[in-house]
């Protein structure tokens, strides 16, 4: 799976939880879940659970805490896929 595939799948997952829709038009690895997409912490949990289902991985508490941007999420996904 390429970098672009992963980012595109993350975008699909976050779209229903995104409050600030403009954030989706400039979506890239620097996109911040809280500031750019205005996804609150409770909905970020649902994003992470959907990421787990989509990529068939398990994300631990520590990884979750470091997941601020789309790039962070991609790095965690790649790491878990290679574990």
């Amino acid at each position, binding site marked *: 799976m390429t970098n672009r595939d992963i980012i595109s799948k993350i975008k699909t997952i976050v779209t229903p939880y995104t409050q600030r829709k403009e954030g989706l038009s400039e979506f890239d690895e620097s996109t911040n879940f809280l500031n750019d997409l205005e996804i*609150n*912490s*409770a909905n970020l*949990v*649902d994003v*992470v*659970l959907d990421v787990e289902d989509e990529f068939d991985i398990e994300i631990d508490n520590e990884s*979750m805490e470091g997941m601020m941007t789309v790039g962070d999420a991609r790095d965690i996904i790649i790491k878990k896929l290679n574990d």
Partner: protein
Amino acid sequence: MKSIDIVSKLPYSAPFLFVDEITSISENAIEGNYFFDKSHDFYRGHFKENPVTPGVILAECMAQIGVVSLGIYLVSKEEAASGTPRIAMTSSNVDFIKPVYPGEKVFVKSEKKYFRFNKLKCMVIMTDTQDNILCRGEISGMILKSKS
């Protein structure tokens, strides 16, 4: 942790405590009940001369039993937490099926859908003494261990 300890650990008091008893609890489910005394102040205004329990209060009762009480239990199992966990309701999606009048006792059953990353999401049902469904829905909250 026993059921009675959970009620004493709840961060509410009258007039905003809507839990009388927790009757059963496990990792995955909880049951409890509450009696809506007709002396509640909100009956004077909801509605004028026609007292009916407000839906927002029914949802609160469902959340206090179904999410907060279960959450306090789950957090206490994870570690011997000293204080009361910090809690916040984050979403509720409840259908109200039958009205609840002053002087009714209600029974709340909740099943955990997940408890991950401090978020507890539950499917909650409220029934009356004849087992009629009064309301049901999904309620979520964040349950954070108390800061030591």
